[in-house]
């Protein structure tokens, strides 16, 4: 009996149905297209990026002049390049506020709530909206005599700053827009994790006389530890590579330029592909370091599982 059943690990023996899908090459026939995409669109660009980063290439010239680490030295020594990382701090603070808010509302909705699905939908929906639509919506929201000024005016506050025109406020406004956009995703992920806790645990806690805080501290928090850690790391990486909201809304004007905006402008507006590549390499390195730190702090049980079974 067992001799009849052919393990899928072995190539088909019968030459009758061997064809091109019979031999040892079969898995590669399935992999050729995916691998071609992976190599052409991920690995070749990354390799090229490292190469361009040690040249002074402008993106057009057939010759690429080797300049060694010159571009990297320029990044470190020219303060206006590295300085933009300070702008990331605004997004970092925003990202932390975003996680706290998401956790707060996910916890609230994990208890019995009227209109739970309605609240969940409303809080989540902004995440689905097109980024340009959000950008334009908030350009209107923040403009002088726009929605925000009108709301504040009705509350008696009339002395408002130029939300997007004042360089001391613009980054806060943009970071707040990012929070508005992305909070819904964290919220839904947290809520999903909390709701996967079996109901009996809460009942047992009830019997033990636990209050809501106890339930949060000893049931909810441990159950979302992993997703919380993952979200935190993604939030840091996202803050460092903030791009879409500021690019759409201000184009980097009034001191709202982020590192990625500066990188793409250097490459595509000022035609300094070499320098821009070096900047991209720096950002890539930072993101990889953060990811490595995350792996150390939160060893990924799922990844181990995967490595074992796949």
């Amino acid at each position, binding site marked *: 009996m067992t001799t009849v059943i052919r393990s899928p690990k072995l190539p088909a023996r019968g030459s009758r149905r061997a064809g091109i899908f019979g031999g040892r090459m079969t898995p590669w026939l399935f992999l050729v297209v995916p691998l071609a995409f*992976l190599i052409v669109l991920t690995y070749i660009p990354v390799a090229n990026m490292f190469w361009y980063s040690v040249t002074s290439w402008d993106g057009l010239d057939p010759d690429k002049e080797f300049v060694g680490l010159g571009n990297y030295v320029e990044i470190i020594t020219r303060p206006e390049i590295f300085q933009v990382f300070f702008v990331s701090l605004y997004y970092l603070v925003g990202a932390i506020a975003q996680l706290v808010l998401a956790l707060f509302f996910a916890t609230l909705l994990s208890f019995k709530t009227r209109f739970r699905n309605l609240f969940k939908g409303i809080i989540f929906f902004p995440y689905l909206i097109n980024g340009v*639509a959000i950008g*334009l919506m*908030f350009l209107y929201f923040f403009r002088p005599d726009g929605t925000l000024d009108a*709301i504040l005016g009705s509350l008696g506050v009339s002395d408002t700053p130029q939300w997007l025109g004042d360089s001391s406020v613009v980054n806060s406004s943009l970071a707040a827009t990012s929070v508005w956009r992305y909070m819904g995703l964290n919220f839904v992920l947290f809520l999903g994790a909390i709701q996967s806790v079996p109901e009996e645990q809460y009942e047992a806690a009830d019997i033990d006389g636990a209050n809501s805080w106890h339930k949060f501290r000893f049931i909810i928090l441990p159950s979302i530890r992993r997703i919380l850690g993952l979200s935190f790391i993604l939030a840091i990486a996202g803050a460092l590579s903030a791009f879409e909201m500021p690019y759409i809304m201000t184009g980097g004007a009034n001191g709202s330029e982020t590192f990625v905006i500066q990188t793409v402008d250097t490459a*595509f507006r000022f035609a300094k592909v070499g320098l821009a590549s070096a900047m991209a390499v720096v950002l890539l390195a930072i993101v990889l370091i953060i990811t490595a730190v995350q792996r150390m702090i939160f060893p990924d049980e799922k990844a181990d599982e995967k490595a074992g079974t796949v």
Partner: protein
Amino acid sequence: MTLTTKRAVDQTTARRRIRSPRSPASRLGTLLKYTALVFASLCAIVPIVSIVMLAFKTNEEYRDTGPLDAPGNWFNLENFATAFTQGGMITGFLNTGIILVVSVTGTILIGTMAAYALDRFRFRGRVLVLGLFLLATLVPAVTTQVATFQVISALDLFNTRGAAILLFMGTDIIAIYIFLQFMQSIPVSLDEAAMLDGASRWTIYWRIILPLLKPAIATVVIIKGIAVYNEFYIPFLYMPSRDLGVISTSLFRFTGPFGAQWEVIAAGTLLVIIPTLVAFLFLQRFIYNGLTSGATK
């Protein structure tokens, strides 16, 4: 055994009943909770509502009334007509539609083929291939655009829909992982039975695996569909031609010619949001599940 559990359940319900005549503290808690939820909902809704009201206003109304005032005529569709005809929104929806269908289909075929090869075969180099896919997830796409751009122009795809389609299809490693995860739950005995009946590997993939992957495919369609519909930078960078505008880039161009006509910009914005809202209302459950599995796997 059952008796004791039943008693335990009775006890809990009894305790709840004892507690349920609300103490003032818990009533205050409930009040605070709903206040917080309503406040959050208002924060989410107000920016959208002000755009909705603006979209129905005339240009004079836009200049003379505040952002929180309702439009005089809720059936004034003129701005939508302007947005559609002069703002290139028709081209935008058409291009987005084409790119969406082709790249989502491509993502599914590429992802399922890769997952099939990696899950159902044991071959030399398998671990290396798996590692290559895993490593690629760590590279944030926006950082490599500087160099990806050169690849796209070398392939002569700059300023074609092909550029966006290729980039959307080729860089979705999350999809491969979702398929890989799901494929592990499809019993190998099905493959074996088909092989005994003389089915080739391709037939097994096409006739057995692909249909059984339907739930995973639905997940990928949703995640990918949202991502492609909302993507701004790839079409912006690779398809600058006006005729190749997708909804994001068409809408982005509104700020120039309609700079003084915020009511038209609002109408265009609303036109982009409406399909998303409709999709959300009909596919809520799938969207929540899809995002959860996409983010954690």
